[in-house]
């Protein structure tokens, strides 16, 4: 009986012109326009809107748009790097140097067994304190700045600028928006691909979202840029060069996104590009205090909490692999030796690869893990107990330790920056990808493709640098 209704509808439809759908929509819009015209009184509206238009003429200009984009992002990173140095040192002294010493004294006073002290103070506490000292200051500066740009209405302009490039890469223009979300969190970016209607283009957006640097990876890049890249130039220029290095990785990420999108849309995900319209919102003066508040609460503390939650067990794992011995060496030493050759080919080392294994749940703790493992394994030389981090004064000392104990070079740091961009998504993002695609195959592609790319690019860079001596 319900099919009767559908048959009747079909019969009536046959009696109507083919474009009945369009006519219905047209009539709706006619009514809307009439209603708007009779309700709205625009008095001097034109004068104010010209400001928006003038700004847009620059910010979405074919050439100047990209220049403005580079300058703005560069400024954000420079502020972050320059501003984070002092508070980072303070937190370091407070949490890592003094806090660790106090806790050691406290545990000694109550007569705790050595392995309890080791696991809790040298493992869990130190890793956690480390994450807070290293990550909190840059995040507390970077996120509010980024959010201010977002609230001002700038991000859609970036999307607009990139739109043409995405179209040429055979991807959906809205992918530039999901990419912007990815700069906060890839899991959120993957969820955001729901705004893309075509499955083909949505998959491209899901797979490439990982090439947007997420919250968890910014600190690694900023730290590497500061310690190694910034250090090769005179101190006066260090901040600029460090910021430039981070921007370079971001641009590389955009390039890889476009290249992979292009390759996918020419091969396994072939098809037509959808047309869509991107609405540019008006520029709105951001409400600075509120933005500071929400971005510190929502983003900074959220990311930090996630990092701390991940760092605590990771600290325990690091202490354990450093102190549990199999035969003549610790578990960590065995693993690092096994991973060493692959690490060498990639211009990295076994410690870094082991750190990526330990840090699968969260990219946030890569750097602390690397430093702790380096110190653990290089312990005899540096004179520290296994699994215990040296009490490092500041960023420069981290660099010194990595160079002297870990044998790092500029190549290691640069390749770590590249690998930070190009490696498997964190486990949360992988789960989200599976949840959104419901396909083991595409989840595997999205996970392994970046890893394979990272291997190839890092190995090529290492090969070229070594060939050139």
């Amino acid at each position, binding site marked *: 009986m319900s099919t009767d209704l559908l048959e009747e509808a079909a019969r*009536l439809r046959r009696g109507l012109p083919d474009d009945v759908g369009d006519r219905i929509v047209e009539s709706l819009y006619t009514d*809307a326009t009439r*209603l708007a015209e009779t309700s709205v009184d625009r008095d001097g509206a034109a004068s104010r809107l010209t400001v928006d238009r003038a700004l847009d003429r620059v910010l979405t200009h074919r050439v100047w748009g990209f220049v403005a984009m580079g300058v703005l992002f560069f400024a954000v990173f420079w502020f972050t790097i320059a501003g984070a140095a002092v508070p980072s040192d303070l937190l370091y002294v407070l949490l890592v140097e003094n806090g660790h010493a106090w806790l050691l004294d406290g545990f000694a006073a109550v007569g705790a067994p050595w392995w309890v002290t080791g696991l809790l103070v040298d493992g869990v506490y130190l890793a956690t304190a480390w994450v807070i000292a290293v990550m909190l200051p840059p995040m507390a500066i970077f996120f509010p700045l980024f959010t201010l740009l977002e609230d001002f209405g700038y991000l*859609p302009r970036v999307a607009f600028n990139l739109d043409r490039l995405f179209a040429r890469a055979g991807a959906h223009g809205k992918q530039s*928006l999901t990419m912007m979300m990815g700069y906060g969190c890839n899991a959120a970016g993957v969820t955001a691909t729901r705004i893309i209607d075509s499955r083909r283009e949505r998959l491209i957006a899901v797979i490439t979202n990982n090439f947007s640097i997420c919250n968890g990876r910014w600190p690694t890049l900023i730290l590497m840029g500061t310690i190694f890249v910034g250090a090769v130039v005179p101190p006066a220029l260090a901040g600029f060069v460090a910021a430039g290095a981070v921007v370079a990785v971001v641009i590389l990420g955009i390039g890889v996104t476009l290249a992979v999108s292009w390759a996918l849309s020419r091969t396994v995900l072939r098809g037509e590009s959808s047309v869509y319209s991107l609405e540019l*919102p008006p520029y*709105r003066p951001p409400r600075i205090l509120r933005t500071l508040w929400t971005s510190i609460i929502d983003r900074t503390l959220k990311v930090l909490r996630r990092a701390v939650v991940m760092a605590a067990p990771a600290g325990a794992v690091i202490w354990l692999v450093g102190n549990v011995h199999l035969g003549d060496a610790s578990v960590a030493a065995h693993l690092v030796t096994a991973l060493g050759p692959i690490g060498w080919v990639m211009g990295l080392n076994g410690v870094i690869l082991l750190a990526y294994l330990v840090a699968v749940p969260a990219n946030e703790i890569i750097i602390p893990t690397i430093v702790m493992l380096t110190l653990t394994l290089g312990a005899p030389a540096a004179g520290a107990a296994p699994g215990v981090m040296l009490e490092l004064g500041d960023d420069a000392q981290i660099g010194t330790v990595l160079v002297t104990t870990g044998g790092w070079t500029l190549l290691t740091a640069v390749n770590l920056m590249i690998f930070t961009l190009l490696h498997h998504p964190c486990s949360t993002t992988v789960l989200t990808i599976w949840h959104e695609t419901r396909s083991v195959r595409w989840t595997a592609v999205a996970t392994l493709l970046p890893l394979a790319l990272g291997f190839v690019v890092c190995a090529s860079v290492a090969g070229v640098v070594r060939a050139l001596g």
Partner: protein
Amino acid sequence: MATPLPTPGVGRTPEPPDAGGACASCALAPEATRLARLGLDPGRYSHVVALAGNPNTGKSTVFNALTGLRQHVGNWAGKTVARAEGGFSYGGVGYRIVDLPGTYSLLSASADEDVARDVLLFGRPDVTVVVVDATRLERNLPLVLQVRQITGRVVVALNLVDEARRHGITVDVRHLARELGVPVVATAARRGEGLPDLLAAIEQVATTDDPPAPLRLVHHDPELERAVATLADQVAARFPSLPNTRWVALRLLEGDPGIEAAVRDGSLGDQAAPTVGAAG
């Protein structure tokens, strides 16, 4: 593609005998503020409010203002992809509020439009608040008209009036309300302006026993008009409880697959259809 969209399960829990008990903070400030923000947990609620609107009109800001949540609000279209839900209590009565994805229409061109439409059509919220951008009314009205074709339980929140003022735009709120047949409230949700009026309007629409009938848009094409009228009568005969027969008839004339499926499995007629196949 098996897109796991959230199911529009706007089903209700039985009305609590004493809804006032849910609002502890009201006792402290009985009349000064009748609003209690309940964040993510609406507790027991009597009314369901859906929040619709074009992208980037400040829907999420209104949502946050009502629930006290602090979802980040971005100045760009498409920030809210999935549904967000929260709750508030007003005048001692609990409300559950569902923030729908921003859409320009309900014509079901994409997954997020489907979510929005299914919630409105099958979830039958007690109040649908359509948030519109006062600076771009002509672009926002098509959605308002479509929602009005589905239901009369609508409040229009004319948002961003502060921005409109700065741009020298004035909107005749009373004229708009008269034309649409539902309350129109001017708000500037970023500054909390107009929220008391908005809450009062929500309460009024939620509690009225006699909401305005769904809007009838006359099509100036006699052929189409005749077909719509004929089909609407048959829809009414098949689903007597359906308030928006003309709108359904229009969708069927267009051959809308989601609505056809709902006719076929009869879910269109269920008053309290709590589970509806997600992507229509």
